[in-house]
């Protein structure tokens, strides 16, 4: 007898579907981390794989855009996402069959499940392009991947937007406005700017968190990356991480557990996900505190490459966007409350992975053991949420939509809202004596003289604001500039990271990762695979 076809079963199944947001809990691992640190950030030239050459070699070929279809990373993320989708579908099925649920409850639950289902398919769409859409009516899972699934994703988010309440008891649930924001993002990926603008207008005007707080930017940029300040008014939808809950860290940031400094720095392991010089350079600003849209990569922000930790080093003195030092750990700058970043001593192989460490995902020393979990094999399981969508992202997408089909003035306003928050001096990284840790300078754009300029500025702003958050590669593909951008990155970066020599992004192929060969092999119907490989693989 099925004991789950009732309210408790459907609600439990929905929790099971939520629990997949972190990328862990089914067949997944860090290969399927909800933060997309590999596919979104490393491939989007925000970060190198990092650590040393021989660890997680599967990423080496992904970073160089020459992965084989049998690479273990792809099948893991594929399986994880379809497991998550299966759970969402089960929640819908159980709700439909439940006798002890009110219609309102059913509708809400199904809307939440469809939100999650839309999100998981969106992830598949971003990574693999062609992946079959599985809904709750599917019984034969051998579906071809020959259709564009954005319409289905859109329908799920639309249903969620139309049916979800504005507020819900639990901070972790998707509400109407989260669904709206995701629907807008879905439009953006299809270049449906008019529809996107309409929905973003509503989200910006009326959006609230599940707990009823009106969407707003946090006063301090860094509050988005602290376990203590999670689920703020800026958090549109986040993966809820928890620790010391009996799961040995599995519900914490298990997907990002490798992404800490090496050796004696925080987290204990493993030196992955090191920011690129290219990213750091992007935070250079002019006298007005505005980014160097064209020339940012002409000169490097000074770094401690090749300088031992016991040798003196004076950090860069030129003007920098203050967000840099909440995004990138670099020598001499306070690394949260762990003391100044230790330079080479905190890096596993500086010649290979460069001088920087990731920072947005790192927990505070004062929180160790309380908001981090040391019951797994390493200490880096943190309760610091990964926010899939934050309000700054909404504003910047809205700005893009405005620039494309609406008003440049409104676009300017959205971008400047984001910059104004970043310019709050109370939110800068401070030395122990209270002084700024570096020469921070940030100003607002006075105007967007042209659509082209506006779009360039907005795209740059997205990078600065959302760096290391798993979005960049998908943005580059969405904008259609992945090949030129990434090949230009390789041209320069291989002079710093010589393992990138010979790496090349092939237009028409590398915009999407290969359909996992294992999935094709398992898709036989009448002896023929129903899944087709992406072009070029």
């Amino acid at each position, binding site marked *: 007898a099925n004991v789950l076809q009732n309210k408790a079963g459907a609600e439990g199944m929905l929790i099971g579907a939520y*629990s997949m947001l972190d990328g862990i809990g089914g067949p997944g691992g860090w290969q399927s981390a909800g933060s997309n640190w590999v596919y979104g950030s490393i491939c989007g030239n925000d970060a190198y794989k990092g650590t040393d050459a021989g660890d997680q070699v599967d990423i080496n070929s992904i970073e160089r855009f020459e992965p084989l279809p049998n690479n273990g990373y792809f099948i893991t993320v594929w399986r994880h996402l379809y497991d998550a989708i299966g759970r969402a579908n089960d929640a819908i099925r159980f709700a439909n069959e439940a006798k002890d649920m009110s219609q309102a409850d059913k509708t809400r639950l199904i809307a939440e499940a469809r939100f999650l289902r839309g999100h998981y398919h969106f992830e598949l769409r971003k990574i693999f392009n062609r992946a079959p859409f599985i809904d709750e009516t599917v019984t034969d899972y051998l579906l071809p991947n020959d259709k564009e699934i954005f319409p289905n994703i859109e329908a799920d988010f639309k249903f969620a937007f139309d049916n979800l309440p504005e507020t819900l008891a639990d901070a972790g649930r998707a509400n109407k406005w989260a669904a709206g924001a995701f629907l807008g993002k879905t439009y953006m990926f299809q270049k449906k700017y008019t529809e996107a603008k309409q929905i973003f207008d509503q989200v910006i005007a009326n959006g609230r968190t599940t707990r009823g707080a009106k969407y707003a930017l946090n006063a301090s940029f860094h509050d988005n990356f602290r376990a203590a300040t999670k689920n703020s008014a800026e958090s549109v939808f986040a993966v809820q991480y928890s620790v010391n809950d009996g799961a040995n860290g599995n519900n914490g940031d298990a997907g990002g557990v490798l992404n800490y400094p090496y050796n004696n720095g925080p987290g204990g392991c493993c030196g992955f996900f090191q920011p690129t010089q290219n990213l750091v350079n992007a935070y250079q600003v002019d006298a007005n505190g505005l980014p160097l849209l064209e020339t940012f990569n002409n000169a490097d922000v000074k770094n401690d490459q090749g300088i031992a930790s016991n040798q003196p080093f004076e950090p860069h003195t030129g003007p920098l966007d203050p967000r840099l030092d909440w995004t990138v750990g670099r020598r001499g700058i306070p690394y949260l409350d762990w003391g100044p970043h230790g330079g080479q001593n905190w890096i596993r192989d500086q010649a290979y992975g460069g001088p920087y460490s990731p920072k947005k995902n790192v927990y505070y020393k004062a929180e160790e053991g309380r908001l981090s979990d040391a019951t797994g094999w390493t200490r880096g399981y943190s309760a610091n949420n990964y926010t899939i969508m934050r309000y700054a992202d909404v504003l910047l997408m809205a700005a893009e939509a405005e620039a494309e089909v609406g008003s440049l003035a409104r676009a300017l306003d959205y971008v400047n809202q984001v910059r104004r928050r970043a310019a709050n001096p109370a939110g800068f990284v401070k030395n122990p004596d209270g002084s700024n840790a570096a020469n921070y300078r940030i100003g607002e754009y006075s105007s967007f003289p042209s659509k082209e300029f506006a779009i360039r500025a907005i795209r740059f702003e997205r990078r600065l604001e959302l760096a290391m958050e798993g979005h960049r590669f998908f943005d580059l593909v969405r904008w259609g500039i992945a090949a030129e951008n990434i090949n230009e990155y390789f041209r320069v970066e291989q002079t710093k990271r010589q393992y990138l020599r010979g790496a090349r992004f092939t237009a028409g192929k590398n915009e999407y990762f290969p359909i996992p060969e294992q999935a094709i092999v398992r898709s036989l119907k009448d002896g023929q695979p129903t899944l087709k490989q992406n072009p070029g693989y």
Partner: protein
Amino acid sequence: QKRVSGKVTDSDGGAALPGVTVLVKGTSSGTATDADGNYSISVPAGSSDVLVFSFVGYKTQEVAIGNQSTINVSLVADVTALQEVVVTGYGTEQKKDIIGAVAVVSTKELLATPAGNITQQLQGRAAGVVIGTSGAPGAGAKVRIRGFNSFGGNDPLYIIDGVPTTAPNAFNPQDVESLQVLKDATAASIYGARASNGVVIITTKQGKAGRPKLSYDTYYGMQSVNRFPELLNPTQYGELLWTQFRNAGQTPTHPIYGSGPTPVIPEFLVAGPDVGVNSNNPNTNPALYNVTDFSRPIHQITRANREGTDWYKEIFKNAPIQSHQISASGGTDAATYSLGLNYFNQRGVVIHTGYERFTVRANTMFKPKDRIRIGENMQISYEELVGTQADNPDALLTGEGGAIAQAYRMQSIVPVYDINGNFAGTRGAGLGNASSPVADQARSKDNKNFAYRIFGNVFAELDILKDLTFRSSFGLDFTTRYRQAYGFRTFERAENTASNSYSERNDWGRSWTFTNTLTYKKTFAEDHNVKVMVGTEAIKINGRGVGGSRINFFVDDPDFRVLDRGQPVGQNNFSYGFRESLYSLFGRADYTFKDRYLMNITVRRDGSSKFGPENRFGVFPAIGLGWRISQEEFMKDITWITDLKLRGGWGQVGSQNNVSAANQYSFYRSTPGNSSYDITGSSTNVVAGFDLDRIGNLATKWETGVMTNIGIDATLFDGKWDINAEWYTREAKGLLIGRQAPFTEPDAAQPAINVGNVRNRGIDLAITNRGNITEDLRYTATLTVTRYKNEVLNIDGNPRTFFTGGDTRFGNVTRTQQGLPVSVFWGYIIDGFFNTESEATAAPNQPIRKKVGGWKLRDINGDGVVNADDQTNIGSPHPKLQTGLNVELAYKGFDFSMFLFWNYGNSIFNYNRWWIDFNSFQGNRSTRMLNESWTPQLGNAAKLPILDVSDNQSGNIPSTYYIESGSYLRMRTMQLGYTIPKSLLNKVGIASARAYIQGQNLFTVTPYSGTDPDVALQNNNQGDLGLGVDRGLFPNSRQLLIGINIGF
């Protein structure tokens, strides 16, 4: 009436023979010799009667009584063994009457291989039986009878004293009285649904009427492993790195070897936070050293090992093996007993591993009345595995995380110990992420897995009528197992374990078998022998287990290893249970006409709880026919044919091995790690949710094997030659296989489903020749030949449908598909190298880079591009032939035996090459990679692509490069013994004494480059769809032993 008395002795040596049947010919009046071989019998006075002396293993002798009152007889051993009684399913048969394919394995031959369990001893001993052994102490062997009939669960059924088991490892081989392998349906289908993979029938030693006998048998030996892959020393490793960088157009730089024009080995690998430094670095100051206080930064200081650590030599050490057996037996006509005490101890050749076993066997039988026999057979055992908590030590020692693979994953520049004698490791950079196998083994030395097991039965037999016997047997197999493991915090690894941990687990499993049979046996009109047996059997298996773990223990002291010494945060606990049952009805009829025409019919109906109500029952019939041609009148003149029998059989058997007891049910589960979520945003509390655990399938049903067997048994020249040849075909239908779900489905354990047919065809051949070379020099030589051809006839009707197996870091490397054997290797064919730029440019695109010095992959379908569709069958794990040659020589007091085993014609997928020949994890590399990678000079003579640090592709496709021949010729055993003359022994009250020396695996001839070519049946618990993939298995060791057998 008069009395005749006398003594019966053995013609060879003159020992008294107790228990010889003495009959007056043509009557039922008879007696048996007593413990001293004496008999006395009344015969009608003055008759011309004849006395018949018969005894198992001896030629029957007839003596006319005439006027004699004392008749002493000396019986001659019967080498033809045609009268030998063989235990088959639920009964016994004389060898001459057997119709089915039954291989009788001599106990002596079995015991010639000193091994912890019976499965390892079987290798090469029975035609049609393929064995894959592992050198891990206590590990069982993989036994496959007549090929692979299924996609998994191909283990045979073992019946020990009538009690079934699938886990014969705890069984003491020295208790074996006889061992038979039932190979075809005629012989095995009486075991119905579990007989598909053959049945191994073992009976244990019973007491015999006569004076008590006591014996002591012991051996002691040393095991060693000496065959290791050739790996790089630190200087060569640096050379390899620099060439790789240069070929990739990069400036060489490495955290350890520096950035100079040539690689430089630094004095220190690690000094606190610094790597690759010299003694001028202040962090090399020993005063800063700290690896014990985890509240401060770890400051380990490790010197580079310039000469290089040979990690294989560090973990493989010579290790002793020993066995001590005391046996006592005896009895009277009314009661017999047999007692066996055994201690077996095998230390592993991998450090800190070992297996120990104590067994007590007590078999007794009582005949309180003429018609009643009751008795019991029982073994109590205690087994202890050291250095592991896995049930099978293979599981922890082999595979990529096991000590054997870590031996090549560790670079040789890493010393075993740091400057203060603590473990050194991969801490730092550029050294990969292996963990020191010496450290791992030392830290797990107190981990234990021990089990108590009671195995045996009680039985009663009642002769209801003279010809009608009822037998009831209740068998029990009860095991309780305890496992404990401690995990240390580590400091020396690239990726350290943050917390210490301790886990314990206890479980018990019980299975009982209740068997009742009724046997009717009668000879009608002298020529018609009829035997009919019907029976019922009920089997129930159940058990439970419980376990838990905690972390963060204050001290690592072994004396404090109890769970509640650890912290409650991070604790885990679990329990589980299982049950299944089987109910069966069976019957068998044997009919023999004139000792010449033989027929047998069996049928069994099984009901199993593993299947849903609609498919629960299965019926498995078989028929066998035999013709003893030699008994025909027209053959009487051909005297050199002692015995000739032609036989054939057809039948069905089943299998339910490859299906779990939970198969028919779908489950959801709720676990903190998999289905719970912090929906409230609390950061420390989760709300429990659900996720799919397993999918059930009510439609799953029996797997059916249809077998046909034709055999010839010939005994020629009065036993000088024995020939046994069989041809068989067996087709398994509705194969059970774990469903391989599309990856668009939710993740869950999948049910077994019934798909496809597999056919095995083969020949089993056993030839024995025996005789005398000189009067004193006797010999026996036995050749067994096993050949099977395995083919998947059908999977789901579509020839392109396949199943995958052999999971590796780059996907599945085996495929099972119509028209091919089970589990062939599947990959790309390498057609040499691109030697010029133009060659590379002209070639079709391929998944690995087209570059000078790179591999050229074959475009099999000729579509102008090499992609996944161009993979093909690149090798089969199935041997074409396995053969064993056993030779025994006896010269006066000396005896010599040797056993040569030849495995021919299979391929091995040497997955270890991925680790040591390519840019995989930064472990050590092979000398092959350094010396045989492509250079312009080597050209197509190269083995590997050009060294290139940015080549992350070449090794990551399954290709012919991984395929090696798995053929080998191995001297399994060689033994020389000397038996001290009885005349000397009698003075000191010893009945017999023999001493021997023995060598085991003295040599192996093979082209295989891995540590041991005995890989064919290794599947690393991945099921039989992933055969023959070498992932760093535990090699079989060479052993040198001395042994003593003493009888009192």
